[in-house]
């Protein structure tokens, strides 16, 4: 019984390998691969990971090689098959970083390498990838706690800890509301920093704590663009220089937007010094 079953599988695989990929099929494969690459770049994966994933996916789907050219705002991708090439370009719109989608695409590629699927299966699978959003109140609580932990690490007292927790939680709520309305990231960061600084200034105005500067610093830490900064360095070390510059500039712009928010709040309240 099992022997018979195995024989069928072997025969099936043999037939699939012999299947000739025509130009129509090749361009379909190209479109599927670039869809996966765009998904990974949009949600903030590292450049080397995008390139390797595209190449592995191409090999698993049956093309000879995949060449990819990455710039921060677009992807150009070519698949080669017996001297025939298909090229396509996609624009990339950067979205808030979401690692669960990147992980899902990665897992899908490994699954395809294990047991061969065709390009239609990949298309439907990618459509079904769900962003693993946590409960928003849980995120607010955890981010508030994270910023408060930072304030503890910088040497805050109990009141400073409490004020940091409250102001960064409210800031996180506002950040979620703004990104729900699909504002530009720069605007979101500026407004959130403004409100976080306004809220944390209560520590100074009511003389609640001995360490007000820690509160100011820690309550805006939820806006540090850590992921773009680190990926920009990692890309640069691995030879993707234009991507590294793009990510660096993106992270710097977000930092500047945050600083603008902080400075605006400080000048409104007429506080000096940090």
């Amino acid at each position, binding site marked *: 019984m099992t022997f018979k079953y195995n024989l069928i599988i072997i025969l099936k695989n043999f037939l699939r390998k012999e299947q000739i990929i025509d130009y129509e099929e090749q361009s379909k494969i190209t479109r599927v691969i670039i869809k996966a690459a765009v998904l990974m770049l949009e949600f903030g994966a590292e450049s*080397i990971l995008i390139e390797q994933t595209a190449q*592995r996916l191409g090999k698993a789907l049956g093309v000879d090689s995949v060449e990819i050219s990455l710039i921060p705002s677009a992807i150009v991708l070519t698949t080669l098959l017996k001297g025939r090439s298909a090229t396509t370009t996609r624009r990339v719109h950067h979205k808030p970083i979401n690692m669960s989608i*990147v*992980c899902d695409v990665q897992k899908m590629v490994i699954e395809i390498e294990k047991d061969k699927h065709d390009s239609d299966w990949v298309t439907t699978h990618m459509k079904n990838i769900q962003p693993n959003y946590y409960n928003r109140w849980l995120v607010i609580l955890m981010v508030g706690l994270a*910023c408060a932990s930072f304030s503890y690490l910088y040497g805050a007292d109990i009141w400073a800890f409490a004020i940091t927790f409250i102001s960064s939680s409210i800031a996180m709520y506002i950040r979620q509301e703004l990104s729900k309305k699909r504002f530009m990231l720069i605007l979101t960061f500026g407004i959130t920093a403004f409100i976080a600084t306004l809220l944390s200034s209560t520590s100074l105005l009511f003389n609640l704590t001995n360490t007000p500067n820690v509160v100011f610093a820690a309550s805006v830490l939820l806006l540090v663009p850590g*992921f773009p*900064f680190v990926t920009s360095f990692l890309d640069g070390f*691995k030879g993707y220089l234009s991507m590294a510059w793009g990510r660096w500039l993106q992270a710097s712009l977000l930092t500047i937007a945050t600083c603008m928010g902080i400075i605006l709040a400080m000048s409104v309240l007429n506080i000096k010094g940090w």
Partner: protein
Amino acid sequence: MSGLIFDIIINSIFASVASTGFAMLFNVPKNALIYCAIGGAMTYIIKDTCMDLGLSIELATFIASAFIGVVALRWSKKFLIPRPVYTVASIIPMIPGTYAFTAMITLVDMNSHGVTPELIEIFIENGLKAISILGAISFGLALTSLYYMRLNRPVI
């Protein structure tokens, strides 16, 4: 001595809470969350210990991030998850956010209130610290994959 160890443990617990919070901000998969917390605690313990032994903050940060790079390689092979998911969340407690913000705010201060030697000093000091710590973090993280790139294999 025991007080010192107690301090380090308490600090590492807070660091792991910080790592977990930021990991949720990046939407990491649920089963990776606990490893992000462990990684955050580990990096903080290593960095604290190194700084207590008298190393500079840059060198301590570099050692800690190189260590988490090696550990995350094992985790990513085990669970088939890209390494940045673990590493970026783990190094978040070491990101020089305050230095970077202070440098930027001084820059704007210089524009609005006039340039003084003190402001220039604060700007250069904080900016250099931020860039060198960031460089130490990312070079430490990249070290393992740079080692493997020579072998011409996929990262995970």
